[in-house]
């Protein structure tokens, strides 16, 4: 079992135990919080982008990976360039989305897939399909794996390059597929170095069709030799045989499975996924668990203190503190609360940093990079590549700005929560917190404090956006014109707000790009100087216009982001308030209890508290091991070439 699957199972186990406790304590609001967390962990998605030149090889690879003999039609002839997503569901539903945003998606049968993805049945994509979304019960997808099959690299797939370009920087892992019939071509190397490496270092290189070439190891060596200078290290390349895996499905012969090398491929896939983002999903589950446990503990601790008190006066004191805390919460919920100003000002600061500093730096990079390409005479023969490069730059900038905005917003939110926390010392009840992310929680050993702040740090990136890739789902949704929540598993509202705008921007830019490509295709490149000037005069305004669109849309997303963050914070305040109100009711129970009753109740409450502490300590151990198996969440390490991905990844402090 992959680490991720095991850890996810354990997190779910803890969440369910806590939910049982919440149920027995009759605290529906805590139960609801835990239900949500369970759903998010269960449905949390990991996006794997499958790229490569040969559609045929990719379709077979996906079939083989999913143990499906013929889900994706494999045809010797070319297939239509259409983005396909596959994820797990209880029952199979396959939807086709169309170019025309107003046209509703159509539900089709799996036998009809060929009608949309093969050139024979759908020549030149005359059906105008834009995206094929497959949901199907499949054990390989149980853990939230979403496979996204992208149209081939290079080529002239004008209409779909926007989706591919938006996807790659945001995928959790990119699987690059080539085959053993030929070493990586220069087309492929160019795609890797220009479209993948600036945005993601999490690439798994898979070489299919090893059954076709006896000396496939030589092809692997040749590919390593070609990739090493691009990557700066000697990459691992996995040779696989989809055919042998599919043979195995029929023959059940272990030899076929071994020859296919798919078990190795899956292990690698999960290892990289876990390192990259799997841990974010599980850690996020654990932080919600801690918050829920805190909300369960507050009333119990109040009641315990009440039963252990020696006088009414002591109970009055505790109640007074609870009332004080409640009053603060009420004030926080009010319209004029200071945090609203802090939030508004904080977002203004973020807007300045992102839109002035980061945007300007991004514009500078994009311009100098495109400028270099424009000066390169060889591009005269491939002006469409320039258009794609502009798109790639702008998409990278837009998503980097979105990520940075969300990351900064998450940190701002954490700060506001920490500074507003009702942290009143109540005798032995030494902490009432509204923010689970504050480190001083009773019952957690000192050593664990550092641990949880690391968990929180690591998880910050994911607080608003699910996983790093969670963004992609809604960008994709926005591009196909679906509701923003399309494909996303429990994406937080602030992320949706930002992604919808970005998706819109990318759609607009893609539309312009199509026209520009068409225009440039007629440029006569005989007279190179003239051609170069014409190309420059077309590309430069396109770049400027696209950058402006990108800025306008990111700017436009801030008001929706503010409303979403306010809603989010107020919801948390309400939960905390309910927890405190319950604490007052429980405390009332302690008044007038006989000594024997008090002893009995105290022991009972202590039992609950022990159970909470026990779950908490197991959570800490688990968090420790998840952190150990994870890599720090990093955007692409900057390559020698300054890349657009650099704008992300920095904390403002």
């Amino acid at each position, binding site marked *: 079992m992959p680490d991720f699957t095991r850890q996810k199972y354990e997190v779910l186990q803890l969440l369910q135990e806590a939910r049982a406790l919440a149920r027995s304590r009759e605290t529906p609001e805590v139960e609801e919080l835990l239900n949500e967390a369970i759903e998010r962990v269960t449905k949390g998605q990991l996006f794997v982008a499958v790229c490569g030149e040969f559609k045929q090889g990719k379709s077979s690879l996906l079939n083989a990976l999913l143990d499906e003999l013929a889900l994706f039609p494999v045809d*010797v002839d070319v297939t239509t360039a259409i983005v396909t997503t596959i994820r797990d569901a209880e029952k199979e539903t396959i939807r086709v989305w169309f170019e025309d945003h107003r046209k509703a998606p159509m539900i089709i049968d799996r036998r009809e897939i060929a009608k949309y993805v093969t050139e024979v049945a759908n020549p030149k994509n005359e059906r105008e399909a834009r995206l094929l979304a497959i949901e199907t019960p499949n054990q390989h997808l149980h853990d939230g794996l979403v496979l996204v099959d992208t149209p081939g690299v*290079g080529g002239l797939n004008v209409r779909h390059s926007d989706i591919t370009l938006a996807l790659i920087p945001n995928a959790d892992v990119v699987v690059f597929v080539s085959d053993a019939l*030929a*070493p990586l071509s*220069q087309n492929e190397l*160019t795609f890797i170095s220009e479209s993948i490496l600036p945005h993601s270092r999490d690439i798994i290189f898979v070489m299919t069709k090893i059954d076709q070439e006896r000396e496939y190891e030589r092809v692997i060596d040749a590919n390593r030799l070609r990739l090493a200078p691009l990557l700066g290290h000697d990459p691992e390349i996995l040779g696989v045989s989809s055919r042998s895996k599919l043979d195995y499905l029929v023959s059940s012969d272990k030899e076929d499975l071994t020859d296919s090398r798919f078990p190795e491929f899956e292990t690698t896939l999960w290892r990289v996924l876990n390192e990259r983002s799997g841990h974010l999903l599980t850690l996020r589950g654990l932080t919600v668990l801690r918050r829920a446990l805190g909300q369960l503990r507050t009333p119990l601790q109040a009641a315990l203190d009440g039963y252990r008190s020696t006088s009414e006066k002591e109970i009055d004191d505790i109640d007074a503190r609870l009332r004080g805390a409640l009053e603060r919460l009420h004030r926080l919920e009010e319209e004029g609360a200071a945090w609203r100003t802090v939030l508004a000002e904080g977002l203004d600061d973020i807007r300045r940093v992102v839109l002035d500093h980061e945007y300007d730096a991004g514009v500078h990079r994009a311009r100098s990079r495109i400028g270099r390409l424009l000066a390169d005479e*060889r591009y005269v023969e*491939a002006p469409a590549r320039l258009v794609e490069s502009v798109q790639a730059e702008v998409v990278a900038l837009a998503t980097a700005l979105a990520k940075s905005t969300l990351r900064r917003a998450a940190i701002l939110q954490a700060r506001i929560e920490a500074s507003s926390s009702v942290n009143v010392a109540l005798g032995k009840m030494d902490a009432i917190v509204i923010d689970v992310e504050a480190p001083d929680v009773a019952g957690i050993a000192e050593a664990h404090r550092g641990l949880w702040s690391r968990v929180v740090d690591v998880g910050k990136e994911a607080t608003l956006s699910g996983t790093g890739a969670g963004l992609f789902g809604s960008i994709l949704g926005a591009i196909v014109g679906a509701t923003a929540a399309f494909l996303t598993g429990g994406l937080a509202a602030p992320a949706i707000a930002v992604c919808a705008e970005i998706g819109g921007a990318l759609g607009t830019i893609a539309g312009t790009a199509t026209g520009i490509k068409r225009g440039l295709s007629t440029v006569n490149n005989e007279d190179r100087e003239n051609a170069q000037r014409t190309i420059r005069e077309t590309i430069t305004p396109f770049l400027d216009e696209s950058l402006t669109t990108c800025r306008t849309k990111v700017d436009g997303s801030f008001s929706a982001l503010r409303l979403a963050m306010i809603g989010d914070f107020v919801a948390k305040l309400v939960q905390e308030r309910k927890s405190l109100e319950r604490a007052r009711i429980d405390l009332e129970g302690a008044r007038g209890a006989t000594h024997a009753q008090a002893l009995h109740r105290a022991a009972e409450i202590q039992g609950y508290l022990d159970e909470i502490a026990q779950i908490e300590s197991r959570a800490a151990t688990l968090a420790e091991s998840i952190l150990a198996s994870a890599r720090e969440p990093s955007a692409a390490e900057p390559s020698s070439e300054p890349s657009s991905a650099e704008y992300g990844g920095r904390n403002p402090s």
Partner: protein
Amino acid sequence: MLSMEGAILPDISLRTRALRLIERCLKLATANGDGGPLYDELFDCRERLRQPMRVAVVGLTNAGKSTLLNALLEEAIVPTGPIENTYTITWLRHGAPPRMTVHFKDGRPPQVRDTSELADFVGWQSDVRALDLIRFVEVRRPNAILSRLDLIDTPGFASPLVAGTNATLSFLQARGNELSAITREEAMKADAVLYLFSQSIHTSDEAVIEQFQGPASGRATPFNSIGVLTKADVYWNTGVDPIAAATRITTRLMSHPKVRSLLYSLTSVCGLMALGAATLTETNFVTLQKLAALTDETISRAIRSAPRFADRPVPGLNATAADRQALIESLGLFGIWMATRFLRNGADDLHSLTRALLQHSGVPQLRELLISHFGGRADLIKIESALHRVESAAFREMQQSNEPTRRRAERIAGAFSAFRNSEHGFEELDALKSYYDGKLVLSPDETDDLLSVSGERGTSLSARLGLAEDASRVVLRRVAAEKNAYWYTKANDFAPASQEMRLATNTVSRTYELILFELERTPEKMHR
């Protein structure tokens, strides 16, 4: 079989007449003792006309150029392998004894080497710096196809945009770009071009078309270019007949107007299987016989995977690992499978197996096509391009102020244009060009007539009339008369919308007339 060339000029061939014309003009050009560009052009044209047709084999890297070349020659001359391996241009010409001459860029005298050293001069495992100094390698072999055509193996076109920092790689990249330039130049100079592509058809037809028209498009017209889908055997999977699959692809591509305007025809081959068949040894044959004796299930299972077949014993097969590896290397999986089929169906010796495999590979058919299309029309195609070049050189010279030079150029240009006008074949070429450029509006039947009568489907009289080779004289005459009448009416009654239509319909009508004339003129027995 009777050809139109014979019909129009019974005594001497078009080529000889063209050569005589050039000789005459060469004398004219040197009358005043000076040479000049026009003289050079004429001299060059004469040399080209005297030499066999030059066919350049071009395509992206790993398109299977070297393998197909070897298969056409039926001998493994140029090195091949799973990694792209051709970093030098190899010019294969007819000659005995076999020898190899290395030509350098820096003006050094050419070096004669043993042909066994070829791999050292074209592959990149060899000293990469030395590669840089080579302009091309000339190989002479006493090979039948080379007596009809020169074949030029070229390195794959490098993509114009590559990233690479490693020293060897950047060297190879620079070399690749340079080679692309040289290859382009060679393709421009070649009389005909074979465009190869493997299954690396990307995601769209446009990408394939780009391959044809991209880097080597210099002078490509449907007259001098043939597209070849190589490596058809890789489609062999889940029971698909790879040849049929490949044909489906080429047929669809050929229905694309853009492709039709670029290629004379598009065909598919299994280069590896053909080469393996042509070079099959007695040992290979024995191993194949043993394999064919096993059950189908055992055979299919054994050849599901190349590494498996090479590295693991096949149950019931008494063959060494070396035997099995040799088979995989020479025939490939599909070739082995087909060999067992043919052995089961009566191919009982090495020779008949070789023949059956070759026939199935599509390579002999391609060779036929090359020789009949390029070989048969070679003179017309070459003379046409020679006329163009001389005429434009003469035109340039006519702009000069020097009176004698101008007069001389005028006379040469006049002689050439008279020659052009006297030769009906050139009018046919013009009509075809208009068709391929999409300037003619014709019904499917008319298109058929145009293509047949102008020799696109063979240059015999019956082929030109769209009839079987054994059609009787009576039928030939009847059809020629009918078609002549039809086209004559079309050319005269119908007021054509364009100059091109008028010229083309007249040409077609005139060709039928010439055929009729030929049928009347020649003795009965020659037509049978």
